[in-house]
């Protein structure tokens, strides 16, 4: 099983969610985060104090997939989240050792 953490632009959330649903992914977790990569911030002034606006709001989507779904899901996310501009985001894939459904207690791939 793999865990996918995708950092995407805010306004791309609905597009990515729709595309994942069509792909067969039935659940996800979404958090609001801030961050930056190569998309640098810029300087602003507030009441006489100059400062750098570096952290940019993004959305992090976490999905858990089986190993054979991985490639398709990565492709789906990339297609739906892309704009072509610097700041489109990144996807992190990590190995997942177990998943448990709390209601029934089942674990493993059937709990995804």
């Amino acid at each position, binding site marked *: 099983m793999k865990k996918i953490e995708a950092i995407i632009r805010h306004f791309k959330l609905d597009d990515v969610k729709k595309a994942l649903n069509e792909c067969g992914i039935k659940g996800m977790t979404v958090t609001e985060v801030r961050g930056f990569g190569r998309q640098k911030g810029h300087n*602003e*002034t*507030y*009441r*006489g*104090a*100059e*400062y750098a606006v570096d952290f940019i709001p993004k959305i992090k989507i976490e999905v858990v997939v089986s190993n054979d779904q991985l490639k398709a899901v990565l492709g789906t996310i990339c297609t739906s989240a892309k704009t072509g501009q610097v700041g489109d985001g990144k996807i992190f894939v990590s190995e997942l050792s177990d998943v448990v459904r709390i209601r029934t207690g089942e674990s493993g791939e059937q709990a995804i």
Partner: protein
Amino acid sequence: MNHVFRRLRRVLFLGLLLATPYSSQAADDKAPATAENKDAASASAPAPATDAKKDETPAPGKLPGYFDSSSEDPKKPDYPDATGAKAGTVATPSGISNSDGSPGGDLPSGMKATDLYDRIAHNLFSINVVWTLIAGFLVMFMQAGFAMVETGLCRAKNAGHTMTMNFLIYPLACIAFWAYGFGIGWGNWNNGPVAPGWVSTLGPGTAVLNSGVGIDAQKDDKGAPNGAYKYGLLGTKGFFLKDVDDVSVMALFFFMMVFMDTTATIPTGAMAERWAFKNFLIYGLWIALPYCIYANWVWGGGWLAQAGKNWNLGHGAVDFAGSGVVHAMGGIIGLVGAWVLGARIGKYKDGKPLPIPAHHLPMVIVGTFILAFGWFGFNPGSTLAGTDLRISTVVVNTMLAGVAGALTAMLTLYAKGLKPDPSMLCNGMLAGLVAITAPCAFVDSWAAVVIGGLAGVFVVFSVFFWEKIGIDDPVGAISVHGINGLWGVLAVGIFANGKYGAGWNGVVRDEWVKAAGSDGVRGILFGDASQLYAQALDCAVVTVFGVVMAYVWFKISNLITPIRVSKEVEIEGLDMPEVGAMGYPEFIVTSRN
């Protein structure tokens, strides 16, 4: 001289209004009581009514009690008047018959001129009291505006604490004002210098505010002290509103209280986000002390108002609605408090200021509108008279200065290559309103635009200045209220046009009466440099007095209970540790500094 003016003014003013059977001499006494004709005028002042029964028309030549706040029976004084029964007679138009079949109510056929006069006088006082009270309600609501502006400009983790300070300052200051502030400030109000012909617009009962202390006690004809002083310092009557249970005094008390509340809440902005709550509590009980002492000097008949008569400084210190008394005092106390407290943790790094952005800009904007709305009570209400139609000019000047300030603040930011920061635009409008507060009744509309416009420029430079030198003012209170309060006081001495305020603070100068027909309040641009000197003196006094009082208090209070919260509390946020409640418990509220 004072006793002559006090007895004369009601005779002259009301006599000028109507030719009535009361006093055949009234129509002759039209000239203001200058030094030349005071002796002739005092000889013709009629004696107060003493023997007439309450509900009978006084005999011709005797005046009703409300002319000079006198009583029919000296052993049973009519003032303080707790019900308003001694302020003329309430009109009761009614066609309903009496029980014996005779027509009841105020029927035209049965009314004498003196009856009509009683009802007119009562209506005069009623309009003035109602106006003053409603204007005061608007000023009270400014507390909500201050709360919104200050909390919005601070961080979310301190919202609960900032709001609670702005909330609780109202009860604390109010009780202190009732206990000792009003007495100090206005206990001797009736003995202050006034224009010839002055009438207490709120009603005759304010005459009971007749006890104070000062330098050089004045004496009446018989050589006994008459309660007035050449240099008034403090009032000494009306503590806990004792012995002044009078409807007119109540209106004055209320109106003056909400003004003090405005001063009281200004430092809570400059000192926000690190002021320990217990220290704020005792501050709330203390603030009435500096405010009311200085208010006595300017408004309560004290020595700054008397500077015109004593030292030929224009009409003495002139501050129509309180740029100095309310705003400069508040801003200066805030400055000293912010300085004693020190900057917020994370505000400065290597000597450079870092931004701590407002957490709720919509709150700041709405709060600014509430304040601007409240100012429509603050300034025109200070006539204490709805029958003084100058209130419409005051309102327009107030509005123009506020809008000009917002616009010039924006232009100043653009000129500096910056964006039109909404928080600074709000500061600009408020600065304009603060600056026009002293001159609002005395200036042309173009001057209101200039005064407010310059205020918008000053506030931007001032905010940058204090921040650069290390004084952390989260909301700009020092710049809005302190700096522009002083500007407003000076502006009177520059732009006042002489059309209003004839005889203000008892100053009537022959040269101005000859040159202009009356001696109204006028500034240097209209020929009276001495008024600017009076205003400069006023500025110097409020600055020195405010700084000294605030510094001594904050230092002493720090020994009673620490003025600043601990570092851990400040970083976590003051809401839970200081007041036991989060402003936004359902959110994870952190800040970057």
